[in-house]
């Protein structure tokens, strides 16, 4: 199938993009990597009157040090760059660990960090990663200027996030990494590159039982990416991994799909927790 007609507008800078969204509101859709939007356009699942191309906006594809000391990752940073960038490896290694799990090389060349976060697919890798890293999303609109939202408040439902139609996601900041912080990512998919049945991101620092901080976030385990607080608390307090796995199974509410029942997903999530915990504990 081919897209229905629309008006294509190439934004030459951020201000221009915000003007176009302010003018057209609900009738306009931003186009980032196009790796989710083009399929939706081709299948005519969406029929925007105006498509606002973000690909030529300078600066939106940069990774910089944020004022807070963490990393400021532009919305149009491509999946591929997050897999290879030295600053990401040094300051947010979880993102480099998760990137190769996203789709296939040709899709990672174009797909973007911001596009994935704005799409808010509960089975996608980036939303769960920014939850695990306690990131902050930065949005901008012509009418209201810049607005910051904690990742924990951003993902509201299935493909639903805290973004208004006139707003652009301009980037995401992740806090500076503690020197002893360790992370791991793992998922189960039917075939490499397919959306995961379940995936898990873990970030830990300190000694379990002595003020350790552990954060666990899951994808594919509910209508939104979610944080597993109970399981993380067990691990931080030095509890047994099996007790943490039981806590995890009890606190998540995955939906069954064509291939995996909800019960199977709980089982896989527990397995991913054991696996990734071994990695961060022994690191």
């Amino acid at each position, binding site marked *: *199938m*081919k*897209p*229905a*007609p*629309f*008006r*294509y507008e*190439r934004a030459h800078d951020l201000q221009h993009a915000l003007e176009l969204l302010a003018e057209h509101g609900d009738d306009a859709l931003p*186009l980032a990597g*196009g*790796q989710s939007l*083009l*399929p939706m*356009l*081709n*299948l005519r699942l969406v*029929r925007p*009157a105006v*498509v606002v*191309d973000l*690909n030529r906006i300078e600066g939106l594809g940069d990774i910089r040090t944020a004022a807070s000391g963490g990393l400021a990752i532009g919305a149009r940073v491509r999946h*591929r760059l997050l897999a290879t960038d030295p600053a990401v490896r040094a300051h947010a290694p979880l993102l480099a660990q998760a990137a190769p799990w996203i*789709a*296939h*090389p*040709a*899709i990672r*060349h*174009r797909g973007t960090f911001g596009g994935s976060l704005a799409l808010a697919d509960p089975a996608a890798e980036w939303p769960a990663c920014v939850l695990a890293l306690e990131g902050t999303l930065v949005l901008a609109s012509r009418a209201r200027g810049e607005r910051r939202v904690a990742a924990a408040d951003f993902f509201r439902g299935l493909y639903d996030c805290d973004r208004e139609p006139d707003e652009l996601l301009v980037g995401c900041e992740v806090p500076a990494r503690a020197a002893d912080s360790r992370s791991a990512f793992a998922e189960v998919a039917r*075939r*490499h*590159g397919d959306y995961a049945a379940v995936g898990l991101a873990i970030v830990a620092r300190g000694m379990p039982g002595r003020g350790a901080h552990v954060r666990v976030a899951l994808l594919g385990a509910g209508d939104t990416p979610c944080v597993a607080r109970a399981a993380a608390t067990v691990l931080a307090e030095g509890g047994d991994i099996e007790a943490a796995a039981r806590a995890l199974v009890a606190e998540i509410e995955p939906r069954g799909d064509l291939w995996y029942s909800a019960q199977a997903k709980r089982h896989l999530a527990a397995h991913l927790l054991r696996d990734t915990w071994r990695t961060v504990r022994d690191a």
Partner: protein
Amino acid sequence: MSAVREPPERWRDIELEVNGERCALRVPEREHLADALRHRLGLTGTHLGCEHGVCGACTVRVDGDAVRSCLMLAVQAEGCRVETIEGASARDAVVQALQAAFVERNALQCGYCTPGFVLAAAELLGECAAPSREAIRVALSGNLCRCTGYQAIVDAVEQAARRLSNSEPPR
């Protein structure tokens, strides 16, 4: 009769480089790059299998990177350097070695998927001269073949890699 009110078709003039030649095109803004290459430039080596990103038959290079041409608008390629299987097979030694190995190992039957597999495999060999079978499978995971069952494709990529690193003479 459709009840949906559609905006009128809008056309745009673009210039880009395709297979080493500058070209000027007039395209509907909604047209994806694959259709522009096939229908406006006659480059029918770029195939369309699914038009939603899952099969890889439409793989081309844009500014050197393998991408899905069904997931990019032609207007987005303005000013870019596009290379299709036609151009790559004329000029790129890695692509030529892969094509020869695909023939020798019977890595194609209908051939519909082949241009996409060759361009995806060429990118892999550009990054890693001697990939494992597992690495080849992962790199080609986004390309579907309905005929071969993949074994022969992985064989062909391995063979091309060996030949390019001179550990095996051409037949």
